[in-house]
C-alpha cells in the first residue's frame, strides 16, 4: 500500500511527528506563529484518547505538561518567543526534576512582542541559557517539513531516553511553509519509551544513578510513591543541601547529555570534503545556504555546508576540525550573532569566522550569502 502523503505546514508536520512518537498529551497557550501545532493536536489527540488542554498562560502550560509527564504521558507544548521567555521558569524545573517532555519554539522577532509574523532565529542562545542555573539542553533545528516530522519523533525519543526536556527550534518560514510530508509506517521510525523502574516500590529512588546516568522514572499512580521537587535533591528525591550530594547531582544531569553526545549529535555535511569555505547554517537559513553552495561551486568556489540538526549540545568537535580544514566558516543566521559565538569559541582563531545577520523579518537569501563568501575569501 502506498504511504500516506500530504502537503502540510511545518507546524502541522511537527504535530503529526509527535503523534507518531506516541504523544498523548498537549498543553499550550495560543501564540503566533506556533498555533497550528496546538490546533492539530486539539483535533487529533481526542481521537486517540489523548488529552489536549489550553492553559491560562504559557507558564501554566509547561506546568501541566510536567504534571502530565509525571503520570507517564508523552507530552508536547508549543510556543513562540514571548511564550518561551515565560516557559524558562519551568523548563528549569523539568531539567532539575528530570521530566521527559518536548517544547517547540517557533521563533519570531523580538525582544518582547517583536514581529509576530516575521521569521527569526534569535532564540538560539536562549534555548541553551534561558533558564537560570547550570543545566544541559538538547535542542533540535530541523529545516524542512519532512524533517520536522522526523525530528519531532527524535525529540521525543531523546526526551524519553535522557529523561529531560527537549526543545525544537523552528523559524516562521519552516513552520508555515507547506511541503509534501510522507507519514512513516508503524515501526519504520524508532520510538523510545522511558525506562520504568525494575525495583519494587519500597526500594525505588527516583534519582538513583547506580545503574547509569539516567535513573528510571516511575509514573504517578503506578504504585510508586515518591517525591518530586525543584530543590536540589538527593537520590531519594528529597531536598538536600549536602555539598557532595548537590554537586554530584548537578554534574550528573549535565554528564548524562555531554557524555552521550555521540548518540545525541546529528548533522548534515554537504560538500565538505574539499571545502575551503564552510557555511554553518540551520533551519530555513540552511536552505539558502545550500542554494548558495551550489551556485558557488558552479563558479569554482570550494564551498560546503555544515548543518546541525542537534544544535545543543553544540558540535564542538566537528566544528574544530572544520576550522582546521577551511579558510573560513560563514554563519548566516536570522539574528545579530548567536550561534556564530559558538563557532568562534570552537574555531579558536584557526580560520576566519564571519557572520551574516538579518533581523528585518525577511529571510537571508542566497545572494547575500554568496556575496559574503566572496568578500571573506
Amino acid at each position, binding site marked *: 500500500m502506498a504511504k500516506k*502523503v*500530504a*502537503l502540510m505546514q511545518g507546524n502541522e508536520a511537527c504535530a503529526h511527528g509527535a503523534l507518531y512518537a506516541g504523544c498523548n498529551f498537549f498543553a499550550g497557550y495560543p501564540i503566533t506563529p506556533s498555533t497550528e501545532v496546538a490546533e492539530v493536536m486539539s483535533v487529533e489527540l481526542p481521537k486517540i484518547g489523548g488529552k489536549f488542554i489550553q492553559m491560562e498562560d504559557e507558564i501554566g502550560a509547561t506546568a501541566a505538561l510536567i504534571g502530565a509527564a509525571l503520570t507517564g504521558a508523552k507530552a508536547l507544548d508549543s510556543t513562540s518567543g514571548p511564550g518561551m521567555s515565560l516557559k524558562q521558569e519551568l523548563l528549569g524545573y523539568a531539567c532539575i526534576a528530570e521530566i521527559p517532555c518536548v517544547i517547540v519554539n517557533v521563533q519570531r522577532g523580538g525582544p518582547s512582542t517583536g514581529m*509576530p*509574523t516575521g521569521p527569526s532565529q534569535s532564540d538560539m542562545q536562549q534555548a541553551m541559557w534561558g533558564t537560570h542555573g547550570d543545566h544541559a539542553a538538547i535542542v533540535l533545528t530541523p529545516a524542512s517539513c519532512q524533517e520536522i516530522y522526523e525530528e519531532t519523533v527524535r525529540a521525543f525519543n531523546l526526551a524519553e531516553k535522557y529523561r529531560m526536556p527537549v526543545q525544537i527550534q523552528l523559524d516562521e*518560514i519552516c513552520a*508555515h*511553509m*507547506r*511541503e*509534501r510530508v510522507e507519514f512513516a509506517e508503524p515501526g519504520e521510525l524508532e520510538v523510545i519509551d522511558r525506562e520504568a523502574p525494575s525495583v519494587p516500590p519500597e526500594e525505588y529512588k527516583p534519582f538513583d544513578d547506580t545503574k547509569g546516568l539516567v535513573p528510571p522514572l516511575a509514573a504517578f499512580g503506578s504504585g510508586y510513591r515518591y517525591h518530586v521537587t525543584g530543590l536540589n535533591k538527593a537520590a531519594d528525591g528529597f531536598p538536600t543541601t549536602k555539598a557532595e550530594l548537590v554537586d554530584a547531582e548537578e554534574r550528573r544531569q549535565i554528564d548524562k547529555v555531554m557524555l552521550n553526545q555521540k548518540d545525541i549529535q546529528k548533522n548534515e555535511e554537504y560538500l565538505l570534503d574539499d571545502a575551503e569555505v564552510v557555511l554553518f547554517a540551520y533551519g*530555513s537559513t540552511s*536552505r*539558502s545556504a*545550500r*542554494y548558495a553552495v*551550489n551556485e558557488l561551486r558552479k563558479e569554482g568556489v570550494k564551498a560546503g555546508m555544515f548543518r546541525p540538526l542537534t544544535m545543543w549540545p553544540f558540535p564542538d568537535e566537528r566544528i574544530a576540525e572544520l576550522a582546521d580544514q577551511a579558510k573560513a566558516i560563514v554563519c548566516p543566521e536570522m539574528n545579530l550573532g548567536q550561534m556564530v559565538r559558538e563557532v568562534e569559541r570552537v574555531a579558536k582563531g584557526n580560520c576566519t569566522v564571519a557572520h551574516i545577520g538579518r533581523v528585518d523579518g525577511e*529571510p537571508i*537569501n*542566497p545572494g547575500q550569502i554568496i556575496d559574503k563568501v566572496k568578500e571573506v575569501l
Partner: protein
Amino acid sequence: MAERYEIRFSGAGGQGLITAGIILAEAASIVEGKYAVQSQSYGPEARGGASKSEVIISDGPIDYPKATVVDACLAMTQVAADKYANGIKPGGLLLLDDDFVKNVPEGDFRVVKIPIMRIAKEDVGREIVANVVALGAMIALTDVVARDSGETAVLAKVPEAFLDLNKKAYSLGFEKVKEAMEQ
C-alpha cells in the same frame, strides 16, 4: 540542480489566494510527485489587506523556500499589480484581473488579462470561486502541472456539494486564458 519554477498569487486578503497556492502545490507534489513548496505572507488582518501566496515547483529538492524572481504572477488588484510586477523574471508572465487592474504595469513580461472576479460571479455564479478560476487560468498559462492534475487537486480540496461549481470554475479559468492567449 533541478529547474525551479516560481509562481506568485497576489491580491487582497479573503480572495482565497493562499488556498489557490496550496492547491497548486498539492497538484504538483501530491498528484504529480514533483517537489513543491508553498508559502505565504500575511499581516495581522484576517480579511482585507494585502495577501500573497507563493509556490515553487521543481523536479528536484527545493532549497531556498521563498520566491526569488517569479516566472509567473497573478495580480487580482491594482495594489498587488503595482507591488509585485517588478518581481517577475525577464520574459515571465503576468496574469491580471482586468476589471480591477486598470493601469497595466509595464515590463519585460507577457501580460494576459481576463476578468477573473466577473467570470466567477457571472459565468460560474459564485464570487467565492474566483480563486479556482484564477488557478485554472494560471495552470493554462504556465503549463506547470497538467490540466487534470490541477482539477484533481481542486476536487480533493472542496466539499462534495461544491464539486460541480469548482469544476466549472476551474475549466472556465483554463479556457478563458487559452482564448486570451490566442488573441
